[in-house]
């Protein structure tokens, strides 16, 4: 198989996800959602995918999760080709997608429950994760008793409960107000650093993409294409004031330039 040569290479470089000319088209090739994207995601890094609607960023996320099948190219997670849904990754969407008839902690427990009968340790871990996302006092609340931001916190705890070391976040805070979103972004950075997860974060907000990430995949639409991968050099932990510095704004301008010229 052709893939073997770069498979060994990527493992040496501690790459967790690697794609070579990954493409996806629908309707027998008539609609190209993503045109050959090549990239390597180092383990433990935070990568943002930014671009306007229709640039294929959600498609790329679903390809990595194995929820849809790629039309071309090679895509490996932990050195193994993606052939279908797999539990190396955990997903989070713009909508919290909580089960309304379950309490917060029962929702968090769901990923374990489908695999085995939850042990006492599992149950304690679920409560602990709710604490980690700041919902200590809402362990037994039902989703409809929680605000939109709190529901996303539950979804994040559920995502961490999967034990997946790769987190795929599709505009997770996109439906929330600006203030809530900023606060949750800061907490997200703290939490993924704490659990040492590799994170892919889809957004259409350039500032947010840069502020959170070590690398920004800049994507352009029609057809969806990975235009460039931009490195973000700022040290961690990062404070919100970073977004006011000239260096930060220069990077925003650079990404905006890439998006504008396509």
């Amino acid at each position, binding site marked *: 198989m052709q893939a073997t040569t770069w498979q060994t290479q990527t493992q040496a470089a501690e790459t967790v996800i690697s794609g070579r000319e990954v493409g996806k088209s629908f309707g027998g090739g008539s609609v190209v959602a993503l045109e050959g994207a090549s990239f390597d995601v180092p383990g433990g890094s935070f990568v943002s995918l930014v671009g306007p609607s229709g640039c294929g960023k959600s498609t790329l996320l679903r390809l990595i999760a194995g929820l849809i099948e790629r039309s071309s190219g090679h895509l490996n997670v932990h050195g193994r080709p993606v052939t279908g849904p797999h539990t190396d990754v955990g997903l989070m969407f713009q909508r919290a997608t909580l089960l309304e008839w379950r309490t917060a902690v029962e929702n968090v427990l769901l990923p374990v429950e489908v695999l085995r009968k939850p042990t006492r340790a599992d*149950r304690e871990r679920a409560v602990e994760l709710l604490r980690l996302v700041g919902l200590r006092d809402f362990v037994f609340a039902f989703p409809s008793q929680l605000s939109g931001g709190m529901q996303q916190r539950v979804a994040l705890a559920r995502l961490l409960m999967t034990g997946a070391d790769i987190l795929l976040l599709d505009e997770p805070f996109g439906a929330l107000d600006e203030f809530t979103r900023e606060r949750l972004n800061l907490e997200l950075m703290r939490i993924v650093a704490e659990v040492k997860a590799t994170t892919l974060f889809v957004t259409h907000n350039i500032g947010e993409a840069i502020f959170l990430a070590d690398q920004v995949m800049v994507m352009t639409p029609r057809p969806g294409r990975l235009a460039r991968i931009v490195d973000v050099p700022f040290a961690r932990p990062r404070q919100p004031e970073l977004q006011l510095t000239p260096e930060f704004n220069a990077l925003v301008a650079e990404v905006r330039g890439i998006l504008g010229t396509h």
Partner: protein
Amino acid sequence: MAAIDTSLAPPTTDANLRRRRLATHLGIFLALMLTWETAARLGWTNPLFMPQPSQILNSFWVIFVGTGNVWRHLYVTLTEVFAGFIAGSVLGVGLAIIVGLNPLVRRFLQPYVIVLEATPRIAVAPLIIAALGFGFQSKIAIVMLVCFFAPFVNTLAGMLSVNRDGIELFRSIGASKWQTFRKLMLPEALPTVMAGLRLAMASALSGALVAEFISANEGMMVLIDRYTGSLNMPSAFASLLTLTALGFLIFKGMELLDEFIVFWRHESRLAAASRKRARAWEAAR
């Protein structure tokens, strides 16, 4: 928030206000009855069609306690209602689950469902009686037919409306098809299923009465028909009001069942449910 909000009155929060309203309602009702009674006694109304409230009240005593006539007929009608409802809704929900899980079956069955749904159910009743005879089975079959479609259509709609994110979530955590059905699709469809069951139950009583009206020698409709035929209007009214009470009880019963089963759609139940889950969680530690 129920799937179908059938309450007519705006919600009242103040208990005091509620008590005052109840008093007003009671006052108006008594005044109305008094006017009616007086009008009848003065000979302003035809006693043949409009019996006096006091006579109706007396008839209640007669049919429930005196002769006890009503019980047998009430029993027959109730049996038809519940047997028909259970048979019809089990069939409706069950078939909808099978159809909902099989796109192929769905595609081939759809035209028949549309044709059957467009057919007025009551018009089929004489045909059912012709096929099954005048007995009990034909009444139950008619109620069953009346009760089939709402649960069927609602269950199917509920199962097909499960959001894509939910399905993707279950796929990504490695859930089996059965787990996805049991833990996601079924509970998510429950509020719509319950709305269908409530609709079915609401029409079950009418279905049973129509079936009895066509041909029967027992049941509440037979009783009303006999009283009217013998110009015993007070007893006919008392029987009618018995059905009103029955209809109300059925409605309330279904409402309670809905609050119990799809508690998460009833804000008033959430706090208690949350406490109960917390206790169960602690107990399991």
